[in-house]
């Protein structure tokens, strides 16, 4: 029952439940995979099973009702420690001070709020300004805590969320804890950036790779959990790249506006009017937020994908931008032989350029010219000249 709170991830669930059922829980698990696919959610659910007073199904399912389950879910269980990146306080002494000692009251309140939000929704990304590192003092606290008798009897669990945020010093300090596991203590590390982890840490954990969520899993979850309508849910699931939290984030943004912006940009590009194109690019790139720009380009690629799908299958079933079906059809009638695959590649190149800090209006101008070139099969530059 309770495992349903973790979306998809059938393979990972099977592995974890097998370990719980056989009583052969490793001393340390490392959950890897992109952000927002449920690594923390899985870790919290696993902790619930271990803290549950009366777990069901051979000790592999948390009852969800007892003190152990409810306090673990709320991240307030005495035996469950949730470690995450924190900001550094003013003139903080990384050795002497406890991790939250030197933070301001406002920061403490914010941190407590974020923990509460994480507890309410394990897919929530904890975001605290200036918190870019898991502090060595947090790791020291873990070490100290493990040295003590457990507060409550039974399992003791440490979840290190986004463990790659440990600096070298903190990671090395953590090694000792990983090396000398205490009985009935489970360390769970999660990371979306496996490459940034020390090899010495990787080699001391049992790694479980998490899979990207399927579009259907994300759509269903959005409908069930966020009360989203099926059409927009389906659309964002395609854009979310397998990540539930990204889907939620996309939903909260002005996705529809963006989708029409993209079509309008494309249309202007094909109008062969440098003046209009310049004005359009100025309008679109007024926001300097690169994530926003990137998302816009991804939407363009998705629109072009719809064109390709429509051209190849002739059916409307697999079209994402359902409400723009007329535009898609008319594009396909008018430009029946354009190499859409190469156009998509051009958009992807533009995304790369944005990521590598290229000047955004320039990226858009080049992209517009290339798209135009593909559609009319004439070099755009020659015409401008």
């Amino acid at each position, binding site marked *: 029952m309770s495992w349903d709170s973790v979306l998809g991830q059938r393979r990972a669930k099977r592995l974890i439940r097998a370990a719980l059922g056989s009583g052969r829980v490793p001393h340390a698990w490392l959950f890897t995979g992109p952000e927002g696919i449920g690594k923390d959610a899985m870790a919290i659910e696993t902790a619930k099973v271990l803290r549950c007073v009366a777990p069901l199904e051979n000790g592999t399912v948390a009852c969800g009702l007892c003190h152990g389950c409810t*306090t673990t879910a709320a991240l307030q269980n005495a035996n469950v420690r949730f470690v995450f990146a924190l900001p550094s306080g003013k003139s903080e002494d990384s050795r002497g001070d406890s991790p939250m000692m030197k933070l301001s009251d406002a920061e403490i309140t914010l941190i407590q709020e974020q*923990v509460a939000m994480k507890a309410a929704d394990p897919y929530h990304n904890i975001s605290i300004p200036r918190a870019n590192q898991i502090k060595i003092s947090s790791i020291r606290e873990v070490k100290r805590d493990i040295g003590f008798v457990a507060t409550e009897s039974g399992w003791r669990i440490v979840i290190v969320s986004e463990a790659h945020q440990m600096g070298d010093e903190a990671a090395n300090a953590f090694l000792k804890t990983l090396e000398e596991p205490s009985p009935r203590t489970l360390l769970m590390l999660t990371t979306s950036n496996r490459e940034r982890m020390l090899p010495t840490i990787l080699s001391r954990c049992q790694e479980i790779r998490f899979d990207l969520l399927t579009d259907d899993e994300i759509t269903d979850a959005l409908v069930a959990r966020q009360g989203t309508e099926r059409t927009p849910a389906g659309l964002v699931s395609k854009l979310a790249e397998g990540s539930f939290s990204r889907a939620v984030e996309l939903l909260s943004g002005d996705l529809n506006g963006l989708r029409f912006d993209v079509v309008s940009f494309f249309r202007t590009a094909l109008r062969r009017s440098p003046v209009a194109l310049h004005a359009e690019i100025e309008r679109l790139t007024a926001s300097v937020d690169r994530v926003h720009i990137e998302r816009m380009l991804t939407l363009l690629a998705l629109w072009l994908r719809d064109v390709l799908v429509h051209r190849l299958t002739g059916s409307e079933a697999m079209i994402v931008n359902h409400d723009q079906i007329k535009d898609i059809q008319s594009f396909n009638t008018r430009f029946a032989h354009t190499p859409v695959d190469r156009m998509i590649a051009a958009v992807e190149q533009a995304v790369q350029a944005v990521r590598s800090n290229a000047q955004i209006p320039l990226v858009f101008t080049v992209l517009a010219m290339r798209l135009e070139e593909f559609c009319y099969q004439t070099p755009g530059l020659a015409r401008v000249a």
Partner: protein
Amino acid sequence: MNFSVAVKEFALALGRISSATPQRSPMQVLENILMHLDGSVLSLTATDMDIVVTTRIDVRGEGNGSILVPAKRLIDTVRALELGDLRFEADLGTMRITLYTGSGQYKLTGLNAVEFPQLPQFEAKASLKLPLAKFASMIDRTVFACSGDEFRPAMTGVLFQFRPDEIRAIATDGFRLVRVIDHDMAGTGGDQLDIIVPPKALNLASKAFSADEITLEANQTHVRFADGVTTITARLIDENYPNYESVIPQANDKRMVIRREELLNTVKRVSLYSNSQTRQVRMRIASEGLRVQAEDMDTGGEAYEQVPCDYNSDELEIGFNSQYVRDALDRIDTADVAFDFSTPLRPSLITPHGDKNGQDVLMLLMPIRLNN
């Protein structure tokens, strides 16, 4: 759940438990005090998950029940109130709390008591009564020598060994070691119990009590100190303590006896001229007296003093961290102390000389290697 109480007594009771409340914790619930009213007895509990402090106070109560009250706000309010009577009313449905004083009222919101962490079940294996003063001196003599290194958790606490005819307390950080044996505080029940108590709990225990005698109870997981009103329960450090006995030298044959106060003051003065990193002082011991010397190459400062002492062996030159010498001498209460040396690179022992006051104190100091 309502009660009336004198502001002064309420403030005192809150003061007894306030130090257990963590100020900055990701677990918000810990920033609350658990109040439980049973008839005319109000019990107050605070915890940081390592230590639980509970105290009792007599009130004029009506309606039993429990509620969590924000610790800082309540304590700040009660401390600031004019003396007089305070009436506390809590609606356990809405968790609204109102404090009435003669001149006004204060409203705050509490939390449901079930959110408070479960407190440890405690079953004593060893139990004894001990005079607070003696216990406090045992703590004072050991806690300072604990290690601050989390990577050797055992040494961050004080080892208590309960034996049929004595109690031992041991602390070490690898550079010095203290062993205090008390023969008068023999325990009952726990013949061979060894526990490692975190220093924070000990510091709290040496300050929180006002009675002359306290009880100490312990088992493998927890230790509890109580004086009838206030109870401190702490979780123990669950590690193996190093075999400290093997470190204590048995054959240090060069004994120096010296006036404690005089040596302490000398070391204080001379060490002002020692290197601020090493704090090294050099001691040259001969039958005509002890010469304490320090120099700091960086600033060019140097100092020495001659102190008379009682010494009948070969001349010896040995280096120490002056802070460690001061820490040790500060915690011995006899007029004379004895130093037992063997060679300049082996541990030396400092013990009280003369009247022992019921406690066997032994301090071990590792020397610093001298360069010439």
